[in-house]
């Protein structure tokens, strides 16, 4: 029967413990890295969703809606100016101006009836124009979830998790030192106890570092 070397069991336990720590730390780092990646992807998805919603709302308000509303504004302003001019005119000129004013007023009514902006009094402004900012806010508020998207938030979470994953991975360095001292203890019997102590210290340091990384994350 083979005689057991002094410290042989301790070395085996140390290496086994180091392997367990390395496996746990490696798995944790992998999970954290994966979560970081997931959060970064989430940030890109949110960026796309938020951008698409913003651009579509702006395009709709400042495109078809604003154009239609401005045509109504033009008709109203022209009608006002023709009426004002008619008050200073006489004869045929007055009749022409009043007829033009009536025509523009009719046109304004037709345009306003099909314009969501022009037919709603809350968008009207004192200068005769319309408050497109208010209209855009109302359009944006239809989907508050899209307005509330903040791509920088998952990005920041991803950055934090990546930093933690790197910290966890770096813990494999003291664990590897444990393997180094364990191997040296196996190869240099005369200094076995010293290497075992150093290996134990390295492993303990790795465990403390892992706890620090977890608690300060």
């Amino acid at each position, binding site marked *: 029967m083979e005689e057991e070397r002094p410290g042989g069991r301790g070395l085996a336990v140390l290496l086994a413990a180091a392997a367990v720590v390395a496996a746990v730390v490696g798995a944790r*780092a992998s999970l954290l*890295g994966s979560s970081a990646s997931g959060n*970064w992807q989430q940030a*890109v998805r949110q*960026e*796309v969703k938020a*951008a698409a919603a*913003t*651009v579509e709302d*702006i*395009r709709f308000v400042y*495109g078809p809606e*604003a154009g239609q*509303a*401005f*045509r109504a*504004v*033009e008709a109203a*302003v022209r009608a006002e*100016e*023709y009426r*004002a*001019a*008619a008050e*200073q*005119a006489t004869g*045929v*000129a007055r*009749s*022409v*101006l009043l007829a033009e004013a009536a025509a523009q007023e009719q046109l304004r009514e037709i345009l306003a009836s099909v314009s969501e902006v022009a037919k709603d009094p809350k968008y009207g402004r004192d*200068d005769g*124009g*319309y*408050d*497109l*900012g208010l209209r*855009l*806010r109302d359009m*944006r508020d239809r989907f508050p979830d899209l307005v509330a998207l903040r*791509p920088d938030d998952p*990005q920041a979470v*991803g950055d934090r998790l990546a930093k933690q*994953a*790197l910290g966890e*991975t770096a813990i494999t*360095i003291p*664990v*590897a*030192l444990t*393997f*180094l*001292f*364990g*191997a*040296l203890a196996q*190869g*240099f*019997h005369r200094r*076995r106890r010293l290497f075992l102590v150093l290996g134990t210290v390295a492993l303990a340091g790795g465990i403390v570092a892992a706890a620090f990384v977890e608690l300060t994350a």
Partner: protein
Amino acid sequence: MAVNLDVEAVAEVSGRTRFDRWLAVLVGAAAILAALLASLQVDSGLQEERALHMASRMSVRIFEETAGSSPRFSFQINSLQQATTLAIGATAAQIAVLEMPETAEAIQARAEADVRASERLMAIGQSMGDVPPPTSGIDQATRDVLASDPLDWAGLLSEQLRQMDIADRFGERANRTLFGLSLLALGAVLVGLAAVLGRGVPGRAVLAAATLTLLAAAAWGVAALIV
């Protein structure tokens, strides 16, 4: 047989032969190298991935700002054109009416009204197309998009290019580290093979090869750092 007996005797007294000691050193060195290369690989991979995601986000934001600011600008231009067209028509009528004295009064009055309307419409179109103030209740991100200009887009483009450069650099670092890890794995296999072959010539030859392979792995790790 005599030599074998001597080796056994030495091993009994000192614990191991030089072969075994070197084997132990290589095993430990491989473990350290693995931890260092793995850390470098994880860091490089994550940095590359982050930079790629940031570059993607920048692309989306460039699109968002160019596509989101142009409708407001276009509206202002179009309203200005519309108002100017009215004024030009009025001026044309005022010129034309010089040849038609019988209708001059009516057309002149209408043209003057059109000019006044045009001036009002220019001001109204301009103010309708202004960026809504902070008190409008529109979220800041949307206001930023509305207010963005080519200078902002250039800044975003520059940031996107910077992120792409970061991704390239860390991608190259990750590739070199991966090659180092591959060499390390080969070296570890050779160390194991040497241990199996033992202290004979083949074992020592394989151990030497393992040493060189691990050195090459370390060199690739260093090469990764200088990218």
